């Protein structure tokens, strides 16, 4: 039974990988050719990908008998899910398919990271140390999933803004055939990016708070300046600065777009950089089954 489920989970992972890779290519083709069919394919493939992604997460949950949020592989799987979920909502709500060409590469690169750096033994369900057996971990990681996913979207919007403004800065009027013509108006990209960050920022705060509650239960210390805690605070400060600068000093447009890029770089460093360069209490985030507390 377990082996069957394991095989199914592996299959779901590869279906998801194929779907996300192909949808990225189709989004690029769509943005270059304006072919409506290509655009539809891209969206359908994204939906297929998120179904497979959801299946992989649920199967892992059944196999492990716990929420699938306890090591790098499991978190990356949920991180990608968060990115795609927020993206599909934005595409549906704002009819913004061009964003897919910039967001899908983020999901694709994360999946490539899994393929290249994690062996099969790191991807299978592993025993977890007692410290990770907490309901607060679930809240902590679920809030991280949505907030990080939304920050990835604001990053994609930031890149779109910077490309569009750089093209217009060269004095070129976006040609109706050009790729940039697929992008919405600068003001709309900017406003949407702010909305997405406005949604994600309270979630990031909740993520940090639930992490503190959990740490207090597990270790009796709600804040220990562990590198991951510290970098999540730095990420929080970058986005707090973005919101203050925008509301108080009217930092919109180019400067705001750059801040979304820096903010997402901090998000990535909080995950990858800290896990691989600055290990601390969160060392279990790297797949090592025998580390306790």
């Amino acid at each position, binding site marked *: 039974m377990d082996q069957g489920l394991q095989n199914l989970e592996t299959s779901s992972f590869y279906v998801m990988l194929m779907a996300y890779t192909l949808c990225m290519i189709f989004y690029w083709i769509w943005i270059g050719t304006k072919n409506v069919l290509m655009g539809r394919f891209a969206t359908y493939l994204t939906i297929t990908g998120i179904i497979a992604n959801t299946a992989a997460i649920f199967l892992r949950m059944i196999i492990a008998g716990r929420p699938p949020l306890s090591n790098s592989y499991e978190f990356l799987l949920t991180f990608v899910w968060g990115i795609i979920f927020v993206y599909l909502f934005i595409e549906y709500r704002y009819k913004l398919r061009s964003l897919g060409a910039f967001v899908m590469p983020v999901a694709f690169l994360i999946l490539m990271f899994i393929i290249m750096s994690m062996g099969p033994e790191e991807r299978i369900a592993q*025993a*977890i*140390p*007692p*410290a990770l*057996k*907490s309901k607060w971990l679930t809240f902590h990681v679920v809030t991280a999933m949505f907030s990080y996913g939304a920050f990835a979207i604001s990053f994609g919007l930031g890149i779109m803004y910077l490309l569009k403004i750089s093209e217009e800065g060269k004095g070129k009027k976006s040609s109706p055939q050009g790729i940039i013509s697929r992008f919405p108006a600068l003001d709309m990209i900017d*406003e949407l990016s*702010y*909305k997405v960050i*406005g*949604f994600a*920022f*309270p979630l990031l*705060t*909740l993520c940090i*708070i639930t992490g*503190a*509650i*959990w740490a*207090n*239960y*597990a*270790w*009796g*210390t*709600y*804040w*220990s*300046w*562990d*590198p991951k805690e*510290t*970098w999540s*605070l*730095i990420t929080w*400060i*970058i986005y*707090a*600065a973005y919101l*203050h*600068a925008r*509301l*108080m*000093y009217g930092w919109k447009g180019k400067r705001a777009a750059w801040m979304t890029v820096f903010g997402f770089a901090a998000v990535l460093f909080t995950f990858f950089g*800290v896990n691989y360069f*600055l290990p*601390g*209490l969160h060392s279990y985030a790297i797949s090592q089954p025998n580390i*306790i*507390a």
Partner: protein
Amino acid sequence: MKEQREGIVEDIWRVFSSMKLGLVLLGLVALVAGVGTVFPQVNLDPEKAKEVGRIWQTLGFTQIYSTIWFRLLMGLLCINLIVCSIQRFQGIYNRTFALKPPESISTVPNKVKAKLRGEGEPLKISVQDVLQRRGFKVTTTEGDKGWSFIAIKKRLGNWGSLISHISFVVLVIGAIMGTTMGFKGFFMISAGTTIPINSINVSRGTVKQDFSVHIYSAEDRFLADGERDNWYTDMGIIENGQEIIRQTISVNHPLTYKGVTFYQTNFANGVRLTADIKDHKIPVVLQDRGGNYFQAPGTELYLIVAAIKSDPQKPIIQYQVYKGKSVQPVQTGQVSVGQTIDVQGEYKLTLEGNAGFTGLQVKQDPGVIVVWLGCALLLLGLLLSFYWRTMVVLGVFESGQGTDGELTMGAMAGKVAGGVQEEFDRLIHDIQAK
């Protein structure tokens, strides 16, 4: 002289009420915090922190978060937040509870704006009716040329920013209470042992309580599939010779008594032994991997347990005996449960069975509750700011000829215009439909 002093106070007030200063301080906090993640910190990795160059250690880079200048930075940020909050309080209060209808068209927001024509009185009734139905609190006033109104919805949203800024100060107060009051300590003892709480090793503060802790059992439990379940400690609190509480704690499930919390943070295997020294039997509990030792009274012999095979049915130990300051053991060997061996002709040693050693972190932190209050306020403030945005609609009706005239209406939501347009359009549609 007095004027000069007042001038200085005003200057200081002005500096601290600047949002720019707040942003610079936040940036510095982020920078210093980031530097602290590059240098090993004493509280997280004391061994590696000692290997850092002496100059960096002297400058405080290995304990950056407890240096005076990092605390000063946090203190300045708190002052900045308090001053900014006081400065903005009146404005927020006025924007929420003392709204005045506009006196002229020029004060109607420009970004989200519409003009409606109609008869003065029926239009006023329609506007009031539609806005009230949509949850707005409406205030109207009569003027020379006609009438004007202002309406507000979700007005608590205005307080979001102030609450979230104040919450940071509450968090810092909680953290200060945690470091200046209470204590933090650790003990690792074997099952069957009682320890007075005021005799444990503390890394911060002093223990004022005088109860004792008795450990009934310490277990490292495994599930049927071989996966570790958790570490469990069955413990009791003894006060004035009476057991007050008996509870089993595990990782993530602490016990709190009189503000002191016991966290299960560590576990080690151990064994129960009996040392028979000239017919005088002494119970001994030793920890795996030489975690502690037994010195037989009247001898210079030190016994440690180098390894344990903690089979519940048949535990076996690998022991080593050292004499004085010798580096090499004078005796080594294996003992299985029930077996008795002779140690250097000085005493006999019998292995009785397994005994778990539990490692408990003990903490009294009166600031924790304040920290949680700060977290709740922070979250409340952010939710009000981003998910409960105040919307204000205002307008001026100016009569033309006869009873007809033009109503100029506008809307705003905090400092943001985006997202208001849709709701404003719906309001205009409803008013026109009336």
